[in-house]
């Protein structure tokens, strides 16, 4: 497991476009934006629909499951909060329930719970919600939740 993340060293500033998303994480919900007009889904919660320009929006609660599309192994910390965490993996995850008929999909990035050795492109991952020490913020992280054929790992 990567070391702990010191969330006290990050000051999250929700704004009117994002405050409901952060509220969702406190209820262990991973929300994405959804267009009331055309049904399109996206993340992060930008305030308009890129498919039809509508600004009449709702939230869609994803199951928080997806497939690792790619990743980075951070070995040199830059943020003070992550100094104790290195090495850690940031996964790029394609959400299973946000693939749309026209081929659009939603990729989300997040810190994996798993070690570098366990992470591979193609593996399924699911969201877990981690307390931050601040009751106002709960942080989504991702963990591998199964196996897959044709996975790929960076071995250099």
């Amino acid at each position, binding site marked *: 497991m990567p070391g702990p*993340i010191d*969330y*006290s*060293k*990050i*000051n*999250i*500033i*929700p*704004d009117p476009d*994002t405050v409901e998303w*952060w509220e969702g994480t406190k209820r262990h919900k991973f929300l994405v934006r959804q267009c009331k007009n055309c049904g*399109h*889904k*996206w*993340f*992060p919660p*930008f305030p308009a629909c*890129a*498919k039809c320009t509508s600004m009449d929006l709702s939230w869609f609660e994803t199951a928080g499951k997806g497939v690792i*599309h*790619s*990743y*980075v*192994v*951070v*070995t*040199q*910390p*830059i*943020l*003070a*909060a*992550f*100094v104790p*965490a290195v090495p*850690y993996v*940031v996964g*790029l995850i394609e959400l299973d329930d*946000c693939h*749309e008929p026209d*081929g*659009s*999909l*939603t*990729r*989300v*990035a*997040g*810190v994996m719970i798993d070690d*570098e050795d366990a992470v591979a*492109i193609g593996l399924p991952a699911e969201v877990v919600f981690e307390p931050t020490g601040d009751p106002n913020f709960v*942080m989504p992280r991702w963990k591998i939740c199964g196996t897959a054929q044709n996975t*790929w790992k*960076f071995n*250099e």
Partner: protein
Amino acid sequence: MGALTDKYCIVGVGETAFMKASGRTPLSMACEAVKRAMDDAGLGARDIDAITSFQIADSTDVANVAQALGIRMNYGSVAYSGGSTTEALVAHAIGLIEGGYCNTVAIFRAMNGRTGRRMGGQAPGGVVPPSRAEGDAQFYMPWGFTTPAQHFAPSAMRYLHDFGATTKSFAEVATAFRYHASLNPKALMRAPITIEDHQRSRWVAKPFRLLDCCLETDVASAFIVTSRERAYDLRQPPVFIMGGSARTYADNPAWNHSRQRTYIQAGHFARQRVWGMSGIGPQDIDVLSIYDAFTYTVIIQLEAYGFCGIGEAAEFVKGGRLRIDHDLPTNLSGGHLSEGYAHGVALVNEVVRQLRHRADDACPGWAEGRHSYDRAAGCRQVREARFGACLGWGTETRGSSLILRSLSA
């Protein structure tokens, strides 16, 4: 050909030393770079009537540079943006001059990129102090995903996966540019490196090692754009602007509703416009500069602008193809990886010098265009350099370009 092809020229180039710790203000460095570009062109303060720059992290305002140098501007502006702005500001300059708003534009970038406000927000000691995650940073800072190396790494990882490539292709880029830096007295890092040196260097953000990353640098660099009519009267052989693109955008592959493959760089969407406007193609380019924030950014820009196909660049760069005296001499100054990171401006300056046939190398007669072509003696001038291209990167999602030709082309 574009309506304005060959109507505008780059007439002066200049920069400060590339430094690890300047001990100077960005304002002082900006003044020196602009002054050197003016001197190079043979222009005085009264001949410059516009200054533009751009800023992310460290910077200085154009108004103070104009005040300090005694320039009265008819136009002055600082863009809030980063890499790939250099070439975009050339497009601005052309539009401004063509519209009659001003006559001659100095473009600069000045920053203590190592000892001042660093890209990614680090303090000089290296780590970001307790930081505000606001705006879109709410959705990357809390996941420890903030620096350019971290942001571009998943794109590179997926590239390696999809095409069965290895980081030895990155090493080809790093070693070629370091070789060029060994021929550039201005460069910060001049000691040649091998593929093995690259492969042994420490990890920063896998799949990037230390020698995949550009050099944080304290530097200012500048160049001057004016009309062809004025350019003919000046000190240096004019270098003509054939065409380009100004901050073309693409979806952010790291998030959001993207069908896009992570390694499709924004330049992919500009390619037809760029070459169509310029009237030439990638096969005509004699000297190339590519924004090498990382070795990998070179790989995918070669593909974006059609120097090879998507997924082919890892093979394309092998065998020293990017080296001087090979097929596609690229980043002849050593680039951001080895000369120093100047946010794209110095990459343009190098192509301009090459197209003038006046690369500032070890040849005693370089300033008059006399070169030995003896690499062992430190000559880095490309023979008969006629057409040049500068490809500007500002993440996968934004890119600019500039196509140039020499007076003799």
